[in-house]
């Protein structure tokens, strides 16, 4: 006895199951991808960063084994008899073929037995979303890191890496230490030297019993020893070293506004809009990592533009022609009235199927170049169409040549092609 060990394992790794969980998600990635796509469709673009419930048909996750089926003759013992006596018969429920006997199929929680339901975390959700968007790892990491920090100086510490050594402070410390350790002794040395000089200059006593020689010898020895002591005090010691210390501090809060512009004319199908939505989500996530406060402005347009809420932006349909400049004008007006570029970082993302009234495209180009691009950090345009470009694209191409730092455009036919638009943006921010 007495052979028990009580061990505290609470600080050991928690996530022993992490790999197994990851294996499960990997195996059912097609199911999960679909659930994530559904959620993206359902959720607001500002509400993309949380987990999601996923259900998979149990049939697909079951692990098959040989087992008994229904039929034949079976006898089972049960507890809790009330009135049965041997020889009693109980009619079988009609049509059921006498199944469901005994073996404990009850589901006490009342949840459907034919679904395997589980939760994926926010991080996993984003991963599947980013898979969909074919985001490179570096960009993923940057989007998932929750806080941006900068390093600020915060005094000095006695430990650190050589690169952070503060030479002046270390030497000053060494000097102080040398004074502290050697000062008293040096004073004593000075006193004794004075004494010695006095003795040496004093007239020799005739009585050898009062000879100064012994005293001089003793003083000289003591002075030599003290001097040796003082010499042994190192010029600089480990305890003198001082390192500059830096602390991680959250970036000061700044604000950004994100303009979402979308063509909602008849030619834009729901599929187009779902792709556009991913594009806006990605921009939103990117901004969220860089700014504390983000406003989102939704502007939809056909022949005229209107500021709307998100629901109306993505899910209501219009018919008719397209005049893109109407949206640009409205955006400019909103900037002037509500989002002073001095206080706001302005981003804009425009999605369209490329349709525009031909005479309008040069107007758009001029509006962008003259009144909008000077005010914004970044303007991204995606054209969701597999077809040939129209006038608007060619106008925008010219804009990109003139403003390569703040304007990007991309033609996409599926969500995987959205990312290149952002590459430039990420690269710029990384620098």
């Amino acid at each position, binding site marked *: 006895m007495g052979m028990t060990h009580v061990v505290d394992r609470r600080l050991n790794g928690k996530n022993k199951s992490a790999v197994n969980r990851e*294996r499960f998600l990997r195996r059912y990635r097609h199911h999960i991808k679909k659930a994530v796509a559904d959620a993206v469709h359902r959720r607001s673009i500002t509400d993309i960063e949380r987990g999601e419930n996923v259900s998979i048909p149990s049939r697909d996750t079951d692990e098959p084994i*040989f087992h008994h089926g229904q039929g034949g003759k*079976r006898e089972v013992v*049960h507890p809790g008899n009330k009135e049965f006596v*041997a020889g009693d018969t109980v009619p079988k429920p009609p049509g059921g073929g006498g199944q469901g006997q005994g073996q404990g199929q009850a589901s006490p929680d009342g949840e459907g037995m034919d679904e395997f339901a589980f939760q994926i975390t926010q991080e996993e959700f984003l991963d599947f979303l980013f898979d969909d968007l074919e985001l490179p790892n570096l960009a993923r990491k940057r989007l998932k890191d929750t806080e941006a920090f900068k390093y600020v100086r915060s005094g000095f510490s006695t430990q650190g890496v050589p690169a952070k050594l503060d030479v002046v402070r270390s030497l000053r410390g060494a000097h102080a230490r040398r004074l502290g350790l050697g000062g008293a002794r040096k004073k004593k040395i000075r006193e004794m030297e004075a004494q010695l000089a006095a003795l040496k200059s004093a007239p020799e006593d005739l009585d050898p019993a009062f000879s100064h020689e012994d005293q001089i010898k003793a003083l000289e020895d003591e002075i030599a020893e003290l001097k040796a002591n003082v010499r042994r005090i190192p010029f600089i010691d480990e305890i003198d070293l001082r390192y500059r210390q830096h602390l991680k501090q959250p970036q000061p809060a700044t604000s950004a506004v994100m303009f979402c512009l979308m063509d909602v004319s008849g030619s834009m199908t729901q599929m187009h809009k779902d792709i556009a939505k991913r594009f806006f989500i990605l921009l939103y996530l990117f901004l969220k990592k860089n700014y504390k406060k983000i406003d989102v402005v939704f502007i939809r347009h056909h022949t005229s533009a209107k500021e709307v809420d998100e629901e109306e932006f993505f899910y209501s349909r219009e018919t008719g022609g397209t005049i893109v400049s109407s949206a640009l004008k409205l955006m400019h007006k909103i900037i002037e009235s509500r989002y002073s570029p001095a206080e706001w970082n302005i981003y804009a993302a425009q999605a369209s199927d490329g349709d525009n009234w031909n005479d309008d495209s040069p107007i758009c180009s001029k509006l962008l170049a003259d009144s909008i691009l000077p005010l914004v950090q970044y303007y991204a345009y995606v054209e969701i169409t597999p077809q040939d470009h129209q006038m608007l694209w060619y106008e925008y191409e010219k804009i990109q040549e003139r403003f390569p730092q703040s304007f990007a455009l991309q033609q996409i036919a599926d969500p995987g092609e959205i990312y290149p638009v952002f590459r430039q943006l990420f690269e710029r921010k990384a620098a």
Partner: protein
Amino acid sequence: MTDTMDRPNAPKIREPISTSSEWTFPLLEKYDEEIAKCAAEFGLDTYPNQVEVISAEQMMDAYSSVGMPVGYHHWSFGKQFLSTSKGYQRGQMGLAYEIVINSNPCIAYLMEENTLPMQALVIAHASYGHNSFFKGNYLFRTWTDASAIIDYLVFARDYVAECEERHGVDAVEQILDSCHALMNYGVDRYKRPAPISAAEEARRQKEREEYQQRRLSDLWRTIPKLDDDEDPIRRKQRYPEEPQENILYFIEKNAPLLETWQRELIRIVRKLAQYFYPQRQTQVMNEGWATFWHYTLLHRMYDKGLVNDGFMLEFLQSHSAVIYQPPFDSPWYSGINPYTLGFSIFTDLRRICENPTAEDREWFPDIAGTDWVETLHFAMKNFKDESFIQQFLSPKVMRDMKFFAIQNDDEEDVYRITAIHDDPGYRALREKLARQYNLSYREPNIQVWNVDVRGDRSLTLRHIPVDRVPLGDDTEEVLRHVHRLWGFDVHLESVDDGRVVEEAHCPVKELDEE
């Protein structure tokens, strides 16, 4: 002498170890020390204990790896983890308060959230109850090696990881999926296996590889002599000559196309199946024994004045929840609660020893009135669920639990009550209940029947139905897994009374072919 002096059960002064329900490490040690003293009074023989305090998340991890402290990676454990954590977060499920590992030292997990009385209960239940069962029961003594299992698990995990690196996660996952489908058919039921050892495994892997190759080429020497085929006796001879119950073993040794690492993976799953086999055969006994002892040991603590009334109230509340048996017609009914059945039998066994009635003397003449500690130990050591129930289920327990047997024959329009808890029914009821815990009755009897060594190399499995009970609807799916491992056609025939009553094939046979 005063009254209290006469009754050792009632201590003069109650000096509880603690009065708060908050636990601390020194308190856990103190409780363990006292529980150990009580256990020694009753002669419980245990492996040394290792009690590990873990968090709820860690408990979920432990849960999902079927209680293995180290495990290879597989999606099915991830699935288990997801459903466990979901149940826990919703508060549907209290996490297990006990997970205990059949190892030496015997590892038991305590969850940090538990109150002190709960921790004491788990220590008594797992570290002294289950632990002494692992050390004493003949199945565990014969089939498992508590001192070697952890090393073997580490070996298995590393080997699987190495295979994943070399052959890819998918390739390994496929083999493991197939092995898991046949895991229940990866055990020797009668033959004692070689002891498990990680070092030995690693050393012998190489040897096995060479030997295996020689053996296989003998078996699969492809060009038969002509007169061999002509010989009617040789043609009739089956391979294997006797049906083989350990399907995984047979495949590991005989599948023509498997690579060495694939055979090793089969072997690993097989070894683990064998390790868990005793647990599957002793659930009622093992839980009953552990429950009996947490109940008995903590009462002994109370009698010694080491715990107070509040402690006992909390403990008894958990205890009654554990042994609650909903009746068959309750919405919460999901079969017989093994804790209840096992606890009832052991408790009644003690009663039969201490206070036998006339009925007991008639039913248990060898036991009635004997030393109860000795008798219970005898029962714990020498039986498995099936034989334990057959031997020790008393009429009183059958009455208390109000057992009855119901027969469902698909050739009849009615269910028949075939026996209840009365004089004419006791023996039949006991027999039927015992059979219910016989693994070879609970699982379909399927064995390797024949390999067409000289023909298309197809593998035929044979299923012997009992009472016409057919195979379930997973069968074709499982056959696909057998096919993946075997590499050639696989057939399964159900043979009742010498007549093939049902067939399944992989690849599935075209209808017009039949």
